[in-house]
Structures are given as structure tokens and as C-alpha cells.
């Protein structure tokens, strides 16, 4: 008899083989993180069932089994290796195994030299991801599988990791996309994540075997793999048990199970040392704390009869929906906080109906809506005003603390923080995709342990030794929790640790603050997550300051919206008075649908692909009847207004036009393909002129789109590299398909020296990426791939050296023609750069004539790519700004010193642009950062401090594969609001 036990991240599996190797027993169950107990239970079961008294052959495997096996002196076999052992026995003819588990994803290439791949740190939670997404849609995983069968279309969902994918799915849900389509899209996202993360250039073909829970239980997931890989994989018998099976086959040594049982019970004698203080030392401390926070309450008149004027505030967040009705004094008449159930319109309607039923005689003067669903709700239900979230929250916070200096709001998905200076929003920090979902993570995690969130949080209050769970993101935290559980850390200390982690993520990762002084002494905290006393306490402890948490912390957006609606109404009245208009304002009614209208309200949803431009946005069109409709998922106004957007004040569009204007020419020497990504975005004019002059036809791979990206995703070796680099793989595949004679993508360690810093490097990724392409592309065929190291920055030497490169690959050239080509190349590059600068000056001039504000969208040259910037420049233009880029203004400031080693050309431009913006009253800088750009981890703080020292706002937008622009929009509108407020403040001051 041989026993194999597989202790995974969520389940424990066991297999018993008889002496002929036949399975005589198998089990599969969830362990709910009670690893020690469950394992003991399983072993006890075996002892009883098989009457085990003598030592038996046994081995343990699985990611959660390592420490336990050591403790119990049971041989351990690594789980991927166990799979391989089982495959050798069961399916020796298989070529590739794809195994998905709760936390891990693995691919094994079995033929030839065994290659095994496990997902990296950043891509954890593959299987758990499906669970999470299903719970987001409030369906079971089985239902999700069934729904997916009826899908009509696939949305593109980021596949970097679970956190990113969620950021894409949430708005789809809120826009009203069909659950069938979302379900199917989720499966494709898992497929793409697995392939990008693990294939790494190794073709997945031949006999493919699917193993593990998710692939066993979800037929649609298997089909998605089949379709993407163009194959027909099999899911063999015992697909859940292959690891356990492998452990059983592998097992050779005998173990005394009764003895092991005792040893497993002995708790690990080390518990991770932790530097964290307990949240509360005793009950008294807690009581003082709660008494202090009880003070901050809004007057409530809920349930009382009311007939007079009222104001409505709605906050349609990404996962929750908040509605508040106030009287004219700001007392709350009605309030509701609930999940939006993925259909916010229905939920708002039902809530308003409920409200009208409670207050049939109320007179709603005005209403305001804020949050992600702002536009949609406003259109659907005729809400009078839309207000950007930051302003709504600020308005509400002022109610509690008129001279508030800092507001931090941690919701389920998002985190918003802003500084207030001179009564205006001065500085805004919104979390990037990577640290989103911290709040809801607490909840999801609590429920996975079977606790309601408030009970789980309470447990943490008195944890004596909170465990340090890191603060990078929820994926990392989740795996830290797993480790803590294995080490036997108590639920109390995990709960406390999680609350502290959420706070630290906000403070050190999002806000980048180091002491309470930087925040100011007057802090209001809000958002549903702060209702959790453990989080609140962790925040106060970490910053060493007492803060105000209103009793309606979770509904501040809605409350602020109601107050805002009232203010706007008063403002209007004031305005009418001063202009002498006869006011009918007192009797003016809100446009919000009334009770009867709401009762009859219906709407329909259609999803279409917009073909207005290269972005091919997936639109959801909500039709509310009476000609009112709402379009979601768009990046520009074209599908809404049916008119092309005016690009005349948008330098990014101009750049694309310039680049697209280069013709391939009629060269006869052959066809050179240039991949349009990374630094080629700026070097293209240079190389185009160069090769054209040499007599080549020059073709570019075109601007990126989703399809192009997918073409190359199987050859990406690093799942954590920036998206622009990943995109390069698609461009190479595109050129291969185009059948060019040679692809020219040279390594360029150095960029041109623009005399701004100490050196003029390219970043390590740009410098070396041609090597990555060479090493991971297997289908060049007859196409020559030229990736030599070239240095156009040494102008004098360049012709000689590029001549050598040319002769190495393309035949012989005369010295004169190479020299001539070089001259043409430098001239074209200069002329291209000059055109951009001239156009920028024209835009600036025109914008100033039209009294438009100018945004310097500071990124890198390749951020002009539509699939990389996701149309953010268009969004900015649509908001009424003129848009220029950093390279267009960098040359306008003389060289200056920064507090860094200023040694990268592109980044030197950023600092110069910031320095320039600091001197221009009508210019603002928005820093476009690609996720994973390590250099921006260095440059961000410096760019911020250049601007802030000059009293300017710094706004950063992180972009990646995520296509959802909801958060970006909020950020830009907040910036607009902040600019307006500051101006008003200045005007008042001047008056």
C-alpha cells in the first residue's frame, strides 16, 4: 500500500494505491486554512479505514504541505514534480500539462527536456480568481460556467493578475454588460494569464492534459484553452488527484502514521517574528477609543414624518451603492448602503421607490450623483447634477471639520486621498490598479474563513502579536496569509495584521507619506473600510494622530453629493438674484424621476463594438426610453456625439499622424521592417530615412491594438515587464506575417545626449529588449533579424560602425551611400523633433487664445501608441484641455540640477517638463507611468517635488493592459475641479 497526500492552498487530496498501483481510495476536500487539523483528520481516517498499525509507505506534497511534512517526518515531494511522476505512470504520451490550482498555475513541458513552469510571485490566485469573480457577480462558479456557454462576445480583460482583471470587470458589470459575456471573458482572461505567464516562448502543442480543480470543474475554461491554443486537450480521470497520485507513486519510505499524527499536532515552534504592536492592549483602551469616535455624528431624522424640501445624494461606486436624502439643514431623512449587485440602475431605482414610499410628500429640490456610475445614473434617472467624487467627499468632510487638511477614503475597491490647502483640493492621490481592492479583500478573506466582516475585524482588535503581511497588493498579502496560517498564527493576529497592511498600503504605497506632519493635523477618514475599528486604529497608530471618523464614513460620497446639490441650488439662486432674473427657484423641481415614473421605468442594454477609430472600444448602449440613452466603455465623444473629436489641440494625435505619414517608398533593395514600439516610436523617422536612402522599402508594423498584442503574448518571457515591452512581441509577429526581408530592431544602450543630465541612457528594458525578442522568438524563418548594438549618439563614429552592421547582414554598401544615409537619418530625426516642437507652440498659442488650460501629458515617446495610452489623451482633450507632450517643452528650460543622478534621456525630459510647467500658470503636468516601470519609481518623487515646490499639482496616471478608464476619468476630473477651486480661491483673494 502507498499513500499520497496533497495539501494545496485550498484543498487537501489523498490517494491510496494497492500493491498493484490501483487506486483503492481517494478523497478531495476543502481545508479552510485549518491545515493541521484537516491533515490529522485525513490521516486518522486512513488509519481507521485501513486498520493501519505498522509503518506504511507515504509521502506528502502540495504548497501547504512543506512545513507540515518536515514536522511530521513524512517525505515531501514538490507538487509540480509529483505531477510529473504521475504523468509518467498514467499518460506518458502527453506533451504538455496545464495545471491550475487555487493559488498556483503550472505548465509542464514533458517531451524532450523536461521543463516545468510555475507562476511567479505576481500572478498568484489563478483558481481563487474564478471564485472571486463569480462572487463579484453573485453567482456560483458552476453558474458562471453555464452562463459562459451562452456568450456572444468576449471583452478584453487584463491578464496581468487577479487584481488587474477585477479592475476591468467591475466597470463592465456596472455598465450593464451581459453576465454571459463577462463569464466567458473571465475564462479567456485566465487562459491569457496562464499563457503569458508560463508559456514564455515555448509553444504549447501536441497532446495537452488539463489538471486541477478549476480545469476539472469548468468545462468552459477547458474550451477557452482549446480555442486559444487551437487544440483539443483532455482532462483525464483523477484529474484532481494527480499530485496526490504522484506523491503516492514517488513514496518509497515507510512512515509510522500514528507517530506522525502526534508530531503534526505539535505546533510549529517558531512563529514569524513580527515588529507590529497590538492594536489595543486592553479593553479600557478600546473603550476610550470608541467613546472618542462616537462624537462625530450627523443629525438623523430617519423614520420621522417629513414634508418639506429635501436633497438627494447618490454615490454609485464600483461595488456599492449609497443613497442619502437630507432635509435642508443637512439632517439625514433616509439613507441606504448596499451592494450594487452588478446592476446599479436597478438597485438605485428600487431604492428610490422605497424612499418615495417612506416619504410620499417630500419635495426633492435637487439631486446630485457621484461615483463611477455618475453619468449612467444621471442619464437614466434624470438626476440634476453630476459631481466628481473628490469634490463630493470634500464637501461632506467639511461638514464635520470645516478646516479639514487631509481626507483619506478607503472604499472596497478604491482609495482616494487628498490634501486641502486654502480651502481647495490641493493634491490628489488615487490608488493605481495594483493596490486596489484592499478594502474588499478584508471582506472576501473574512468570508472565506466563515466570518462576517465586522466579527472578523473585531477579532483583530485584541490580537496580541499582529502578523506582518506586507503591503504590496492583495495577491501578495493573500500568499503571506497562507504562510502565516501554515505557521499557526491565530486568526486574531491575522485579522489585525490585515488591517495594518491595508493602512500601510494606503500610507506608504499610495500616498507615499512618512509622518503625520505631512498630512496635516486635521484629518477626516472615511469610506466603508474605515468603519472597521481595526483599520481605523491601525491608521491612528501608524500616523500617531487622532482623526475624525464620521458615523456615516461609508456614505460620505452620497452625503457630500446631497450637500453639493443644495449648494449648487443656493449658488444658482444667488446668481439669479444678482443678475436680477425673476426667480422661480423656490418652486423649481428636481428632474429626478418621480414615483410613478420610476415604477414604470425600464431600460435595455446592447453591446456593440465602436469602429470609429483604432481603439475599437467595446461599448454598452443603455436605452432608457424617451430618447435618453447612455453609452459606456467609450474613450472619446465620437460614439456619443457621432462627430469626430476635434484633435486640433492634441499633440499626441499629431505625433501619430506624422508617424503614419512616412511612406514605405519604392526601394528595390528589399523590404526592411521596423517594429513600432518602445524607443522605435521616436527613432522611426531616423531609421526610415536611413534605409529609404539606402534603397530599401521601409515598412512599419503599425500602431498597436489588442489583436496585435495577442499575437505575441505566447513569447513574452517576463510577466512583470512593462506593457509597452510586452507589446513589442506582437509587433515582431506582425512583421513576420507581413513577410518583410529583414527586421531591424537595434539595441540602443544610449539615447541621444540632449545635454540635460549626467548621462543619456535608455532604460535597461529599452536597451536590451531586442535581445529578448531574439532569444524568445522561434519563428523568424528566412527573415533576417538585425539587433546589433548601435550608437547614433556618437555622430562622428556612427557611419563607420553602422556600415559594419549593414555589411554583416545585408551585403555590401559604399562608404558614400552609408554616409549619405546617415546624414539623411540625422536630418529627418531633427526635422521630426522640430515639427513636434513647432506644433506644440502652435497648440499652446491657440489654447491661450481660447483660454483653454494646457496639460503636459508627460510620458515616453511610446506612450503615443493608442493601445498603450488607451486614448487617455483623447479623454483629456474631451474634458476641454489642450494636450502636449513632455518632449515638446523639455528643451525650453536650461539644464538644471536635480536630487538624483539624472542619467536617462527620457526621464531628463520629464524633469525639464516639470520645471517648465512650474513656470507656466496655465499648464499642468500629468505624468503617464507604465505599470512596472522601475525607473519611474525613482523619478516620480522628484517630479512631484519639482512641481510641488512651485505650488503646482502633480498628477500621476498608471497605465497597463487595463483598458478601463473610469478611474482615470475621475482622476482627471478631480484635477479639473482642483484647478477650478484653486482659481476661485485666488480670484477671491485678489478681490
Amino acid at each position, binding site marked *: 500500500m502507498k499513500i499520497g497526500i496533497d495539501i494545496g492552498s485550498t484543498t487537501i487530496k489523498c490517494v491510496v494505491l494497492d500493491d498493484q498501483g490501483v487506486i483503492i481510495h481517494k478523497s478531495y476536500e476543502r481545508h479552510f486554512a485549518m491545515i493541521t487539523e484537516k491533515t490529522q483528520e485525513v490521516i486518522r481516517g486512513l488509519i481507521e479505514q485501513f486498520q493501519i498499525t505498522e509503518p506504511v509507505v507515504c509521502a506528502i506534497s502540495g504548497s501547504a504541505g512543506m512545513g507540515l511534512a518536515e514536522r511530521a517526518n513524512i517525505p515531501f515531494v514538490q507538487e509540480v514534480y509529483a505531477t510529473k511522476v504521475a504523468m509518467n505512470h498514467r499518460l506518458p504520451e502527453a506533451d504538455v500539462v496545464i495545471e491550475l490550482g487555487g493559488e498556483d498555475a503550472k505548465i509542464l513541458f514533458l517531451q524532450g527536456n523536461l521543463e516545468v513552469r510555475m507562476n511567479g510571485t505576481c500572478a498568484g490566485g489563478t483558481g481563487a480568481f474564478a471564485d472571486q469573480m463569480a462572487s463579484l457577480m453573485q453567482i456560483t462558479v458552476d453558474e458562471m460556467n453555464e452562463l459562459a456557454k451562452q456568450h456572444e462576445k468576449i471583452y478584453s480583460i487584463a491578464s496581468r493578475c487577479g487584481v488587474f482583471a477585477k479592475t476591468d470587470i467591475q466597470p463592465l458589470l456596472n455598465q450593464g454588460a451581459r453576465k454571459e459575456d463577462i463569464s466567458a471573458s473571465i475564462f479567456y482572461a485566465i487562459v491569457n494569464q496562464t499563457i503569458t505567464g508560463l508559456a514564455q516562448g515555448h509553444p504549447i502543442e501536441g497532446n495537452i492534459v488539463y489538471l486541477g480543480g478549476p480545469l476539472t470543474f469548468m468545462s468552459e475554461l477547458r474550451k477557452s484553452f482549446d480555442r486559444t491554443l487551437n487544440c483539443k486537450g483532455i482532462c483525464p480521470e483523477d484529474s484532481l488527484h494527480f499530485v496526490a497520485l504522484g506523491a503516492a507513486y514517488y513514496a518509497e519510505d515507510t512512515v509510522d502514521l500514528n507517530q506522525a499524527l502526534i508530531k503534526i499536532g505539535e505546533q510549529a515552534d517558531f512563529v514569524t517574528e513580527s515588529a507590529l504592536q497590538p492594536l489595543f492592549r486592553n479593553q479600557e483602551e478600546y473603550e476610550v477609543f470608541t467613546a472618542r469616535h462616537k462624537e462625530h455624528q450627523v443629525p438623523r431624522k430617519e423614520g420621522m414624518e417629513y414634508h418639506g424640501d429635501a436633497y438627494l445624494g447618490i454615490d454609485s461606486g464600483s461595488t456599492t451603492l449609497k443613497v442619502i436624502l437630507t432635509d435642508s439643514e443637512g439632517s439625514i431623512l433616509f439613507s441606504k448602503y448596499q451592494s450594487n449587485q452588478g446592476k446599479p440602475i436597478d438597485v438605485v431605482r428600487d431604492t428610490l421607490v422605497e424612499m418615495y414610499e417612506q416619504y410620499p410628500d417630500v419635495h426633492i429640490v435637487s439631486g446630485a450623483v457621484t461615483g463611477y456610475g455618475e453619468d449612467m445614473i444621471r442619464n437614466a434617472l434624470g438626476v440634476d447634477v453630476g459631481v466628481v467624487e473628490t469634490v463630493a467627499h470634500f464637501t461632506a468632510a467639511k461638514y464635520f471639520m470645516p478646516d479639514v487638511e487631509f481626507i483619506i477614503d478607503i472604499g472596497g475597491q478604491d482609495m482616494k486621498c487628498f490634501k486641502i490647502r486654502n480651502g481647495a483640493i490641493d493634491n490628489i492621490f488615487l490608488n493605481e490598479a495594483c493596490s486596489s481592492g484592499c478594502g474588499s479583500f478584508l471582506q472576501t478573506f473574512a468570508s472565506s474563513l466563515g466570518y462576517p466582516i465586522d466579527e472578523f475585524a473585531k477579532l483583530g482588535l485584541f490580537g496580541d502579536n499582529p502578523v506582518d503581511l506586507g*503591503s504590496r497588493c492583495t495577491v*501578495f498579502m493573500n500568499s503571506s496569509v497562507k504562510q502565516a496560517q501554515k505557521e499557526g498564527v491565530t486568526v486574531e493576529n491575522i485579522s489585525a495584521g490585515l488591517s495594518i497592511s491595508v493602512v500601510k498600503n494606503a500610507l506608504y504605497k499610495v500616498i507615499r507619506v512618512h509622518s503625520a506632519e505631512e498630512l496635516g493635523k486635521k484629518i477626516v477618514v472615511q469610506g466603508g473600510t474605515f468603519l472597521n475599528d481595526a483599520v481605523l486604529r491601525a491608521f491612528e497608530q501608524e500616523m500617531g494622530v487622532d482623526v475624525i471618523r464620521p458615523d456615516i464614513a461609508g456614505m460620505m460620497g452620497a452625503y457630500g453629493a446631497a450637500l453639493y446639490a443644495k449648494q449648487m441650488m443656493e449658488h444658482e439662486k444667488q446668481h439669479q438674484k444678482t443678475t436680477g432674473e425673476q426667480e422661480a427657484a423656490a418652486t423649481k423641481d428636481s428632474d429626478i424621476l418621480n414615483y410613478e415614473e420610476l415604477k414604470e421605468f425600464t431600460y435595455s442594454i446592447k453591446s456593440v463594438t465602436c469602429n470609429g477609430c483604432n481603439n475599437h472600444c467595446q461599448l454598452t448602449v443603455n436605452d432608457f426610453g424617451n430618447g435618453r440613452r447612455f453609452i459606456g466603455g467609450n474613450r472619446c465623444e465620437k460614439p456619443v456625439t457621432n462627430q469626430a473629436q476635434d484633435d486640433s489641440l492634441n499633440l499626441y494625435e499629431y505625433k501619430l499622424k506624422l508617424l503614419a505619414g512616412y511612406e514605405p517608398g519604392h526601394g528595390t533593395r528589399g523590404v526592411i521592417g521596423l517594429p513600432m514600439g518602445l524607443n522605435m516610436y521616436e527613432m522611426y523617422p531616423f531609421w526610415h530615412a536611413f534605409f529609404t536612402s539606402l534603397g530599401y522599402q521601409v515598412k512599419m508594423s503599425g500602431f498597436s491594438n489588442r489583436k496585435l498584442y495577442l499575437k505575441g503574448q505566447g513569447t513574452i518571457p517576463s510577466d512583470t515587464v512593462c506593457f509597452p515591452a510586452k507589446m513589442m512581441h506582437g509587433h515582431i509577429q506582425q512583421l513576420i506575417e507581413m513577410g518583410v526581408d529583414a527586421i531591424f530592431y537595434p539595441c540602443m544602450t544610449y539615447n541621444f545626449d540632449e545635454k540635460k543630465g549626467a548621462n543619456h541612457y535608455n532604460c535597461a528594458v529599452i536597451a536590451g529588449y531586442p535581445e529578448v525578442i531574439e532569444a524568445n522568438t522561434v519563428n523568424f524563418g528566412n527573415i533576417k533579424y538585425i539587433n546589433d548594438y548601435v550608437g547614433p549618439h556618437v555622430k562622428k563614429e556612427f557611419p563607420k560602425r553602422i556600415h559594419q552592421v549593414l555589411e554583416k547582414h545585408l551585403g555590401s554598401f559604399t562608404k558614400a551611400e552609408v554616409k549619405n544615409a546617415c546624414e539623411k537619418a540625422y536630418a529627418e530625426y531633427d526635422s521630426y523633433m522640430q515639427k513636434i516642437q513647432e506644433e506644440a507652440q502652435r497648440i499652446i498659442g491657440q489654447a491661450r487664445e481660447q483660454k483653454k488650460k494646457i496639460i503636459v501629458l508627460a510620458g515616453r515617446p511610446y506612450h503615443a501608441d493608442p493601445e498603450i495610452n488607451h486614448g487617455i489623451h483623447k479623454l483629456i482633450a474631451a474634458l476641454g484641455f489642450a494636450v502636449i507632450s513632455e518632449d515638446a517643452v523639455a528643451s525650453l528650460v536650461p539644464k538644471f540640477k536635480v536630487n538624483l543622478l539624472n542619467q536617462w534621456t527620457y526621464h531628463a525630459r520629464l524633469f525639464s517638463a516639470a520645471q517648465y510647467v512650474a513656470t507656466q500658470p496655465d499648464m499642468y503636468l500629468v505624468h503617464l507611468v507604465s505599470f512596472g516601470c*522601475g*525607473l519611474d519609481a525613482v523619478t516620480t518623487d522628484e517630479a512631484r517635488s519639482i512641481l510641488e515646490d512651485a505650488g503646482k499639482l502633480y498628477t500621476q496616471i498608471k497605465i497597463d493592459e487595463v483598458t478601463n478608464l473610469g478611474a482615470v476619468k475621475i482622476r482627471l476630473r478631480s484635477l479639473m475641479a482642483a484647478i477650478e477651486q484653486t482659481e476661485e480661491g485666488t480670484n477671491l483673494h485678489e478681490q
Partner: protein
Amino acid sequence: MNNKNTHYKERVKFTLKMKKDYTILIPEMAPLHFRLIEPILSRQGFHIDLMGAEGPDVLQKGLKYVHNDICYPALLITGQMLTAMESGKYDPSKVAMVITQSGGGCRDSNYIHLMRKAFEKAGYPNVPFISANIWGLELNSGINLTPRTLLMALAGMIYGDMIMIVSNQVRPYEINKGDTDAMVDRWIERLTATFKKGRGFMPKAIEKNLHAIGEDFASIPIQKVPKVKVAVVGELFLKYSVPGNNHLEEFLAEQDCEVFMPSMLGFGVYKTNGALEDLRLYGGKPLKKLIMNIVMKFLFKVEDMLIRNIEAFDQFTAPERVNTLKERAEGVIGIGNSMGEGWYLAAEMLEMADHGYENIVCVQPFGCLPCHVSVKGMINKVRRIDPRVNAVDIEYDPGATKVNQENRIKLMLAVAKEHLNEN
């Protein structure tokens, strides 16, 4: 236009006056090497102390004051520095910090600036930071290192490499547990005493000592049993730093492996050579070329001294010369790739596989930019070229768990053991 630059802050320099009563703190990167180099610097009148703190508290301090997306070594070292400041062991107004600055296109050239910013925020704006680099960046009047001192430091590094490389090949097989480590201690004491007398750093003495080290370690009684042989390659700091790599060497030793740690000198030679390669590829001032050629000629001699003295013993595997590695890189990755570990890493993996250390742990900071190219970008190709290579890349980050790291290493070891049993 307003060109006033209020933003820029002059750095605090380490002056001659400070030398007398300031303690200079150095992050301990490689314990063995630094034990040797420390007495050399102390002899110059510096008060030196090493920082090697570890644990979540240390990392927390780093995370608090440095951008969280910066590489792990920067977070860890900043944490160590701040831990030292708060330890009560030093007078915070009488402390200076040392940090390396490679001067290449990698982020590490900016560590020193990020740390200064962190110190300013943490309330220590007056602590001088001393840049350790070979390019003459950021000179300090108080650091008047004579050529003699530099030579001695170089000698310390060579001795460190020698002891590390040969001891690692003896320890797993020693018959009497503890023999090897006792010998390591004996040699460090002996060399420290020699340095104190101002001796032991001229070529002749080095030759003699290196050979003696080799003889001594070769004389330790061993029993050669087949063991899994693992090489550790990757990012420089993580490779050697014990807090950095979560006690990787210890873990591998517990798993009953023989571990090969590449020489630190080799990396230095590769790095310095990079400047010469740039000149060759792109052109540049002839004088610079001339100087670089002289420097390289000298370094190749030093390198040869170390390697020759290991090769003298049949039982020891010596690292290869940088020029040999360069040939290995041919056709794998361009010699122009010199950021971070650049071409050196791919060549090193192939080298290791050829010398029986085909099982490779490749350490890197999470999100390391050059590693996207030189580690993750190359690993597939290296395996295509030499299918024996059984490599696993391990990422380090404050949020990465030790269990996950060890689990991945165990996978690599399981495959290694299978190969070991087959042969």
C-alpha cells in the same frame, strides 16, 4: 522665466574633520569578504561598522521611506541604515553611510540619492552619504583613499573569493564536521594580522597566500559522495547578502547540496570591462580607451592570479576568466548588454553547467529592469543551447514569502535529484 532652482539640495560631504570621530556604516553584502576588507579600512583610520540587520521591522523602515516599487536591495539597505540610526549604538550626528554606485544605466546608480531623500524625511538630513564607485562620482575630501589602500581592498576581495570558492567545495564533503569553517576562521585571523602589519597585498604575497589557502583547504579530509551541485547566480547584492536572499546558502546546505558562489572579482572585471566594450562599439576618446585598456590589463592579471591558484588543485573547480565567458556569450547575447548582470549572466549559466553545476538558482529583485532582459529574457535560450541547465529564477521582495521561494527551489532540486540518480 524663473530659473531659480530652489528645489535642488547640495549633498552633505564627508570631510577630513569627520574622519576622526565619525562611524562609517557599510551595508554588509558578503560576510566573508567584508570581514577581510573591514580591517583594511580601519587601518586607514576610519571607524567602520557593518550593517546586517534583517527581519520585517527592517523592511518596514525601508518601505516607509523609499518608493515601494524600487528594487528590494534598496528597500532592505535603507531599512538597515535606519535601523542602525535608531539602534542607540551610534551617535546619529556622528555617522556616515556608504553605498555603492555602479554608474551604469541600472537603477542602483540612484540608490544613494533615494537614501539621502529617505534620511531627510526620517529626520537625519545631515548624515553624509559616501558613494563607493570606480568612476569618480561624488568625491569626498575625507575619503582620501591611497592607491595602496585600494590595492589592499582589492586584495581583501581576492582572498575572500578564494576562501569562499574553495571552502564551498570542501564543506559538504568534510569527514569531521566543522573542519572547513574552522579553517575559514583561521585564515581570516591570519590575513587580518598580516594586513595589520601592512603586508599581504603585493602580488608576490598574494600568490603565496592564495596557494597556501588552496593547500590548506585541500588538506581537509573529505569523502566525496554524489551530491546535487547548485550554482547561485543573479543580481550581485542578493547573491551574497544573507538577509537579502533569505539565507539561501544555508537552505541549500540543509537540502544537502554543494553550492558554488561565483567570485565577486569576476563581476567587477565584467563591469569595468563594460566601459571598454562601449568604446569599442560606439567609439569615443582615444585617451579614455587607452586608460581603460591599461586598467583592464591590470584587472585581467589580478583575475588570472586568483583563477590560476584555484586551478592548481585538481579537486577544485575554478571560475572562468571574463574573456572566456565573453566567448560563451557569443551568439547568445550581445557583449554590448552591460546593464546590471547583462551578458555575464547567460555566460555564467552556461559556464556553470559545463562545470557540473547545471542546477542553478538565479536570484533577482522583484521587478528588476535588467533582469527582465538578462535573466527572464535569456533563460529559455540558455536552455535551448545547453539542455542540461536546470535553472529556477527566484524573486525577492518585501511581500514575497519564503515558503514560495523555497517551494520553487525544491522543484528545481527534485529535477536535480532525478538527474543525479540517473547518472
